[in-house]
């Protein structure tokens, strides 16, 4: 028996980073907004407090903050010729659940993408010719440019209070920052965090090789900050429990510390937790959404009518929501027709370990999630790819996020995996190793996509999302090239042994890489290759907006969150100032 509720102006599916921002903007503009969150309500006090939050077993290993995959998993296969099977335990990527979403357990690494990234297809053709890429690569332009997004990047960074050093303000190169970055309109809201020892070693070595090191932009703040919403944050104390954890100190920029206090105080907004949205309901024309159907924590089914539906859940869940609601044409890899699920991309992560003598104390446990020193000399299109046979790149950085020992106990290649030899090596290297992170781009291809699984179901009886993905050759070549450069930096640091681990195929779900899943509801200018227009509005159902990293046509060399924040403000501006004044298509197809 479905209970029909009173109609509201807007229903928001998923109250994480995107959901909190759009709900806040619309509630402040006077619209009645309901936020449906499948997880629990949770706040810095009391849920995130120490000492309980500093529990590696519970949070890292048992993944206490992550999507409950006993109820809602994803199936996976490398190739469409295989049978997809459920990812029965999260490892490779870790979608969160609960109020604040995945951002609660992020590391706060807050990069912008570059101008090149938003016009990747056009600029790649212009610089390297139309035959440069493997024909299976399906990269495309975003339909927005960096200049469109710059004010929104700026607004989002000031919401977060991001700590960093500008490298390019309005075209003027600023010493100490990243000289490769696209121009920003002003300096970061707060100065960079203190530099970890590993970062200082990296900075000197990278400089000696002629590269351009800069402090990683961090949304674990270097100093107390009050954001434009009037919400106060504290300085990070480098506790070393950041990614996979929530912050106890009000020092990591997450919805709880940047915007939820304002949103929850607005009577135009109603938060409902424990609500699993089953689908977006369409009218008989299938061109208009009527609202959503959800099931609450007690198993009761409700229909929530709304004039505007914004799906703002994790990238993979946005894609699944459209497929379950039959909005847009599902992608078919055999014909390369259809759009929903198309251009799923990821991130191509490599690493380098530099081992030092036992009198060099690295202290890896002193860390924020974003303490690090970085170079962008091998990221994006910042180097000439002629003759290399690939596009894209990686930032390279000494990114020291933690020293939690169940997960972090680096040993040199050739070390036995157990016994006295293993124990000796762990003790010898734990506090004397510098790890580099190589955060690589990911091209979209014809073969990599998302659809609904024909066999496996969630706890509500709906099909799981099916992921078909393997690393494109383009990205494996990129990983090999950039890892070799990073090994040279390790050697220049004076390490006695440097071990590079370029990412190799096949992609496996059994090893953590990153939670930067992108694509599947791609944005763009052409309805035959995109699900949403440049304002993240569904081409098929104009009163549905799909805001998430699912909109990225491919993934760039940097962490995706800042770009998603910019897109969120870009989209909500269009919703407030264009769509709601005259509901309908913002771009004609």
């Amino acid at each position, binding site marked *: 028996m479905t209970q029909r509720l009173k109609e509201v102006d807007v229903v928001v599916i998923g109250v994480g980073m995107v959901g909190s921002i759009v709900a806040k903007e619309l509630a402040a503009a006077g619209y009645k907004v309901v936020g449906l969150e499948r997880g629990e309500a949770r706040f810095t006090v009391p849920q995130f407090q*120490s*000492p*309980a939050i*500093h*529990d*590696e*077993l519970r949070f890292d*290993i*048992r*993944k206490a903050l992550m999507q*409950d*995959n*006993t109820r809602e998993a994803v199936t*996976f*296969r*490398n190739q469409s010729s*295989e*049978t997809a*099977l*459920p*990812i*029965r*335990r*999260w490892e490779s990527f870790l979608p969160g659940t609960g109020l604040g979403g995945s951002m609660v357990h992020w590391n706060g690494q807050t990069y912008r993408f570059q101008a090149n990234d938003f016009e990747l297809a056009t600029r790649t053709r212009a610089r390297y010719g139309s035959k440069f890429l493997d024909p299976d690569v399906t990269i495309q332009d975003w339909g927005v440019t960096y200049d469109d997004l710059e004010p929104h990047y700026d607004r989002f960074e000031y919401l977060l209070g991001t700590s960093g050093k500008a490298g390019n303000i309005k075209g003027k190169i600023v010493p100490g920052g990243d000289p490769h970055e696209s121009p920003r309109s002003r300096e970061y809201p707060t100065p960079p965090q203190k*530099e970890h*020892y590993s970062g*200082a070693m990296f900075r000197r070595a990278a400089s000696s090789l002629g590269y351009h090191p800069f402090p990683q932009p961090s949304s674990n703040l270097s100093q107390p900050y009050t954001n434009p919403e009037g919400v106060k944050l504290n*300085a990070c*104390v*480098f*506790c*070393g*429990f950041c990614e996979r954890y929530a912050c106890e100190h009000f020092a990591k920029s997450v919805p709880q510390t940047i915007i939820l206090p304002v949103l929850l105080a607005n009577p135009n907004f109603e938060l409902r937790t424990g609500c699993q949205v089953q689908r977006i309901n369409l009218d008989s024309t299938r061109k208009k959404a009527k609202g959503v159907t959800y099931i609450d924590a007690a198993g009761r089914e409700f229909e929530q009518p709304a004039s505007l539906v914004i799906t703002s859940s994790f990238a993979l869940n946005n894609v699944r929501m459209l497929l379950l609601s039959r909005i847009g044409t599902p992608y078919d890899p055999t014909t390369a027709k259809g759009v929903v699920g198309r251009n799923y991309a990821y991130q191509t992560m490599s690493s380098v370990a530099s081992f030092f003598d036992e009198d*060099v*104390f690295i*202290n890896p*446990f*002193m860390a924020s999630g974003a303490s690090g020193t970085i170079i962008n000399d091998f990221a994006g299109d910042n180097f000439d790819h002629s003759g290399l046979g690939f596009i894209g790149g990686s930032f390279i950085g000494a990114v020291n996020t933690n*020293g939690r*020992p*169940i997960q972090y*106990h680096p040993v040199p290649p050739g070390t036995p*995996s*157990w*016994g*006295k030899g*293993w*124990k*000796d090596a*762990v*003790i010898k290297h*734990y*506090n004397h190793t510098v790890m580099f992170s190589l955060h690589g781009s990911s091209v979209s291809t014809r073969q990599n996509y998302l659809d609904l699984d024909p*066999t*496996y*179901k969630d706890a509500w009886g709906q099909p799981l999302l099916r992921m078909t993905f393997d690393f494109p050759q383009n990205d494996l070549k990129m990983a090999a090239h950039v890892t070799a450069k990073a090994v040279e930096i390790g050697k220049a640091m004076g390490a006695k042994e440097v071990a590079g681990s370029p990412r190799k195929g*096949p992609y*496996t*779900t*059994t090893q953590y890489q990153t939670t930067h899943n992108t694509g599947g509801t791609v944005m763009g200018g052409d309805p035959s290759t995109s699900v949403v227009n440049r304002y993240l509005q569904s081409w098929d159902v104009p009163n549905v907006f799909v805001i998430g990293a699912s909109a990225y046509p491919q993934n760039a060399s940097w962490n995706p969150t800042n770009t998603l924040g910019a897109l969120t403000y870009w989209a909500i501006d269009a919703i407030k100032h264009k769509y709601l004044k005259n509901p309908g298509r913002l771009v004609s197809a």
Partner: protein
Amino acid sequence: MDRVSRRSFVASIGAASLVPAASALAVEQAPSAPAPSHTPLGTQDTAPVYLFFNASEARFIESACERLIPADEHGAGALGAGVPNYLDKQLGGAWGAGERLYRSGPWVAGSASQGYQLPFTPGELFHQALRAINRDLDSRGTPLPRMTAEAQDAYLKSLEGGTVDLNGVPSGVFFDMLLKMTVEGFFSDPVYGGNRDMVAWRMIGFPGAYADYYDSIDRHGVKFEREPMSLGEDGERHIHSDPNIPAHL
């Protein structure tokens, strides 16, 4: 084996003697724990009370864990650190029952990239595999604890190779889970029943749940000297929980 565990016991008590006696607060928070004694909770030399493993399973697990992480000149191994107790409480609790494991069929053997695809919960998997292992060892006439260290290692390597069928569990899958959980028990907080007296953290210099390095992070290259801290401690360094009680959350 006895000699080894004795040595690690002495090592752990040596460190524990720095810790003051359990406080009334500690007793109040752990009402089922024994009355206050001169030995802080969590550091007694009592054999763990096994709730999940039967006696022959426990004997195998104790010997196997100690070979995976042996006691040596650096300090305790897995046995001295209480890892078998950790395994017992995890496997007998929610984790052993399939917590955070998607459990719907159909059950199909997949590729390596598709990860774990067996229908067994961790608890079921251990019982199945240990039954087959103990039957095999019985037929050989020598249980693992009575083998030489070299023979124990050779036996564990035969499991690690993965080709033996242990009542439907490929031995490599069992070995990987045993090794993974042994490392977890060695390095996780002592409230979970392993890492007794934070012995593993002391070995590598990890300060545990202590977490304020604002003033230290830019003192580059300076060794950080501080006693590690457990989740179960209050500001006076008392351990609140009894490691024989699963600290389930």
